[in-house]
């Protein structure tokens, strides 16, 4: 008590200054992403003897307002939102390739082909009707192959979005950068907290990096007593202490086996937006490519079969009919062949290269409008005829239960449902993420009113303590004057 309580007042002034500094820092970071509000922890200093007042206030620490449960929920929600948003984007892109119902889509082009065939059946030898049918067939083949091309372009652009994991600007490279960042921060945080420094700002940076990682890969985390963060994906440690894994891709979109492995070759089942991209590239887009293949196959095989078993208006027989003459070309061929159509297999996509045969494009009259000679007609190979019964059979494919129309409708129905579900899932995930973020923010966010009240309180306390200092000073002076 040699200084008459000046040191007690000084500890109060120091505590108020710390409170003002903290409030000021909180307000400065009010819009900083991932910033957790801080508060000053004060404790009273005990009296030194059995009598007398306490010895003032101790500024214990400046701690962060965080909640482990809400933080983990927030990280999980980021991962789910990252995946749902990406899936929704991919399906929107696929949908924009098939904007049905429309007057220009594949469904409408198929209807046009059937009605052109129906008109041709009554005017088998008219060049205009023949040209209309061949033109309609060509525009369908072009639509199917261009839709297929757009699907595979979407797939390869998604792959380049992910990148290789090396420094190529892809999202995987971004994730690798974040993993590195978390590992480096771990080193600094552990060193700082062991030596008793304030590592709050570093923890904020680490948490922000983890949130971004969650959105990209759907990771989960744990934090040890020193503030070092361990990052997991499917139980594999991506960051442990100061060591970060470097992830790379394997396989490719073209072979539908694009994957992600660690440097040790452990395959990871990525979640988040990268995981959603891998699913899109390996499963979703190939599914619609298969649908397009089956549309192309049902169109080409059914029409080619009728073409092969019929006769054109000049009496030339189709390729399945024996009996001399020049045999008619197929209607549809695949790109690599002049007169053959191969149906799709696991390794061959017929939709990619379907087109109308060059021979038919050059001579539309080679379409087999008449039936082959048989007991129900008097057609003769080599004799021109106006019989249109084979063209009628072709036109009837419009309502065939195995025809291309139904295949296409099934595909559009599946696409519509999947896209509608993805859109709902994305909205739900976004709500979930907003809720998780506002839960976390209710603990660790900066509330402007609270900070302003803190400033007022610190200011009032500072003024009062100043009064104490001035009272002690006056007392000293009177004491000195009396001596």
């Amino acid at each position, binding site marked *: 008590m040699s200084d008459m309580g000046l040191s007690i007042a000084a500890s109060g002034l120091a505590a108020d200054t710390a409170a003002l500094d903290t409030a000021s820092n909180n307000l400065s970071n009010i819009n900083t992403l991932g910033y957790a509000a801080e508060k000053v922890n004060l404790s009273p200093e005990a009296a030194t003897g059995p009598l007398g007042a306490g010895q003032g206030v101790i500024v214990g620490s400046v701690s962060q307002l965080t909640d482990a449960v809400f933080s983990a929920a927030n990280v999980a929600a980021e991962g789910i939102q990252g995946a749902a948003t990406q899936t929704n984007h991919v399906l929107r892109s696929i949908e924009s390739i098939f904007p049905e*119902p429309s007057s220009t889509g594949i469904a409408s082009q198929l209807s046009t082909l059937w009605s052109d065939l129906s*008109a041709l059946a009554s005017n088998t030898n008219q060049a205009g009707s023949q040209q209309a049918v061949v033109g309609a067939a060509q525009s369908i083949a072009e639509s199917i192959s261009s839709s297929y091309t757009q699907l595979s372009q979407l797939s390869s652009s998604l792959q380049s979005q992910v990148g290789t994991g090396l420094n190529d600007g892809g999202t995987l490279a971004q994730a690798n950068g974040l993993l590195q960042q978390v590992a480096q921060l771990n080193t600094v945080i552990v060193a700082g907290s062991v030596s008793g420094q304030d590592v709050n700002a570093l923890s904020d940076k680490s948490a922000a990096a983890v949130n971004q990682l969650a959105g990209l890969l759907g990771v989960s985390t744990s934090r040890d007593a020193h503030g070092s963060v361990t990052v997991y994906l499917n139980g594999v440690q991506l960051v442990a202490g100061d060591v970060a894994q470097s992830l790379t891709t394997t396989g490719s979109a073209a072979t539908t086996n694009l994957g992600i492995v660690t440097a040790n070759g452990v395959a990871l089942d990525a979640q988040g937006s990268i995981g959603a991209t891998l699913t899109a590239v390996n499963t979703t887009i190939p599914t619609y490519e298969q649908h397009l293949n089956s549309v192309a196959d049902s169109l080409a095989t059914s029409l080619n079969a009728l073409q092969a078993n019929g006769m054109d208006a000049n009496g030339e027989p189709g390729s399945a009919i024996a009996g001399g003459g020049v045999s008619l070309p197929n209607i549809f061929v695949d790109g690599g062949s002049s007169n053959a159509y191969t149906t799709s297999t696991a390794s061959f996509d017929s939709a990619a290269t379907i087109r109308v045969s060059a021979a038919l494009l050059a001579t539309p009259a080679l379409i087999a409008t008449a039936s082959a000679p048989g007991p129900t007609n008097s057609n003769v190979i080599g004799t021109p005829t106006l019989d249109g019964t084979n063209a009628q059979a072709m*036109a009837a494919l419009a309502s065939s239960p195995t025809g291309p129309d139904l295949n296409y*409708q099934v595909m559009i*129905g599946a696409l519509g449902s999947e896209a509608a579900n993805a859109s709902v899932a994305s909205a739900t995930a976004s709500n979930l993420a907003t809720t998780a973020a*506002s839960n976390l*923010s209710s603990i660790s966010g900066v*509330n402007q009113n609270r900070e302003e*009240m803190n400033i007022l309180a610190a200011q009032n306390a500072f003024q009062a303590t100043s009064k104490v200092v001035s009272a002690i000073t006056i007392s000293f002076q009177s004491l000195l004057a009396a001596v």
Partner: protein
Amino acid sequence: MNISNAALIQTITNQLATQVSSIAQLQMQLSSGQTLNLPSDNPAAVTQVLALSGQAKQLSSWQANVEMATSWLNTANSTANSVLQSMQSARGLLLQAANQGAQSPTTYQAIGSQLKGVVANLLSLSNTQYQGRAIFAGTSASPQAYDASGNFLGDTNSPTVVIGPGSGGGQTVGLSVPGTVMFGVGASNVFATLSSAATTLLSGAPTSANISTALNALDSVISGAEQGAASMGDASQLLSSASASLTTQISSILSSQSNLENVNIATATTQLSLETTSYQAALWAASQAIPETLVKFL
């Protein structure tokens, strides 16, 4: 609960974005006139619309076939009536030659030359065309059914059009019977029969056997022609009922399609004005809430 400023602003931003997107969707529906613009707008309805529009197009093709077949058969039926009349008049001439016992050569020759005229008339009827196609030539590409000497140039297929669903190409209707049904087959066709009868009559001394052979042959041709004419008449009847039913089906399909994909303007505009009002309210609330803090009152 402690609501941080960043969380408040994020919540307001999200809510405004949701409202703007539903306003944008309504605006798109109203400007395009369609509720279905993408498969995900209503997957079940989109699939149905695709099926319905395919069906409507097929029905329209059948409708076009019915119209073409109706006007073809009008030509065919009126031609068939004239053919039957001419055949009856030829029969009358042959009966005249047969009935009255022996007649003067000039009378026979007069009947013979009249018969020649009938043959020429039948020949021109047999080559009647509908839009460049000889209606009695079957499905042959020949522009004529019979040459000048009465030889058949066509084939025996009956041309058909599809007018409804069915096996193979669908339910078909025959357009006109081939010439072999209408005019008889080969050497016993009406032209050969009547030409040879006319030649005999023109010679001035036909035997009653000559005439009765010709009559028998003609009678059998007439009975075939009557059957042919009857079947074309039946086809006409079938077409008129098919046409009525196709018209009903098309209009019912178009109306279900329109119910599925066209915007109900009244509902959509009401909805849009509701959305706009609540958007304005949200904007107003946001403008009131965001600037308010303790600072204002200190």
